[in-house]
């Protein structure tokens, strides 16, 4: 069984062309990153504002939780049907899939951003205000940098959610690695399905590690304990665990 999967993966012709592994992986990464970037643009400003002002916390937490209960597959299919009726045929299914990816990537980023900003030590906030910083400066120069580790845990959750959802979006004709799983099932080609599944898992794990590393490099050295002498780093607030729902 493992030999069959290995044989499929090491067949040179499976790597080239429009349905090749390189092209499918690249497509998958494009959908995922596009969705995560759009989700960041939506979620970070709103999350930062909610964490800073403390207003709307209950509403957003409630909405984020409610969204988790919606099955991703159902959202994908209903968005796809709607888009075929209302959008130009050429872009309908892709736009619908990306919209669902964004919709599912926003909640983890939003909740971790506001939790991170809200968890900043009030003494730190007071010190910043005492130094004459305006509210905006406190948010951008103090609260967000301190919240960054938590924000990154949210970005990683959002990425994983997108990788997984982009895979099942192959059912509504999206490209990417999900094609191998869906087409392999239709052709009763288990090695193809399993190879696709393996590549998706690999993309998820590698991407998650890369994001964790970027987060570590971006977070202020004063927080991670890099390059600081003798002083213990401030304890990081515990990560918000948001398992994927796809």
């Amino acid at each position, binding site marked *: 069984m493992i030999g069959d999967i290995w044989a499929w993966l090491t067949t040179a012709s499976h790597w080239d062309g429009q349905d090749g592994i390189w092209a499918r992986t690249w497509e998958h990464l494009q959908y995922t990153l596009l969705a995560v970037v759009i989700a960041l643009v939506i979620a970070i400003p709103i999350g930062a504002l909610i964490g800073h002002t403390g207003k709307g916390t209950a509403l957003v937490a409630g909405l984020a939780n409610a969204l*988790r209960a919606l099955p991703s597959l*159902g959202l994908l299919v209903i968005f796809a049907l709607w888009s075929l009726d209302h959008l130009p045929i050429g872009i309908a299914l892709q736009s619908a899939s990306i919209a669902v990816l964004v919709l599912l990537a926003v909640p983890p980023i939003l909740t971790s951003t506001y939790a991170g900003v809200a968890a900043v030590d009030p003494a730190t906030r007071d010190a910043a205000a005492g130094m004459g910083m305006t509210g905006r400066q406190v948010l951008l120069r103090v609260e967000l940098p301190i919240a960054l580790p938590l924000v990154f845990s949210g970005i990683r959750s959002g990425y994983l959610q997108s*990788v*997984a959802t982009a895979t099942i979006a192959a*059912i509504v004709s999206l490209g990417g690695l999900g094609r191998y799983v869906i087409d392999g099932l239709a052709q009763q080609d288990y090695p193809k399905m399993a190879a696709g599944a393996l590549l998706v898992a690999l993309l998820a794990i590698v991407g998650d590690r890369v994001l964790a590393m970027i987060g570590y490099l971006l977070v202020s050295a004063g927080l991670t304990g890099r390059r600081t002498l003798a002083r213990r780093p401030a304890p990081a607030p515990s990560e918000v665990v*948001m*398992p994927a*729902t796809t």
Partner: protein
Amino acid sequence: MNWDWLGRNAGEITSWTLAHLLLAGVPTIVGLVLAIPLGALANRYRWAYPPMVTIAGLLYTIPSIALFVLLPGLLGSSILDPVNVIIALSLYTVALMVRSVADALASVPNDVRQAAIAMGYRPLRRLLTVELPVAIPVIGAGLRVAAVSNVSLVAVAALIGVHQLGSLFTQGEQLDFYTPIIAGIVLCVVIAVLFDAVILTAVRLSTPWRRA
């Protein structure tokens, strides 16, 4: 909404709803039962905590559809066998709950622990009759997240031909027909709310001292 269609297919929808309840519920319980001893170990022996959290985090990174497809290859089961779904979701639940249980036990006030020791409780009995009950609200909060995720994850298994409410989505897609999709989404949300309510009630009933 085409109510006629729903009426004509009520039998199938009912059996898919029951399958969905089972496929999401059983892993939630199995995962919790396995996570309690593992979480207690991670809390008791601090060296065990980082590797367990790392392995759990790695498991969570694997998308469900990948696990649903790969497990039959590893276990030698048929790809259509619902057991793959139950095992995959149990793994996810354990991965999430190990950390919840360990953190919940770590949050038990030290005074409580010391009082139990002074009263002569031995470690195992102290864990079962003092620390775990005090930790129930935090464990319950983690279990709510796991249970709601499981309800959504089960639907994905429709893609590999395991029938439950997710089958309404693939059916709607093939028929170009909204009714089954809307019915499926509504029933999934109802199950998620039901699981949430059951866990909240169980936490409330098992911690009478918190209502005093």
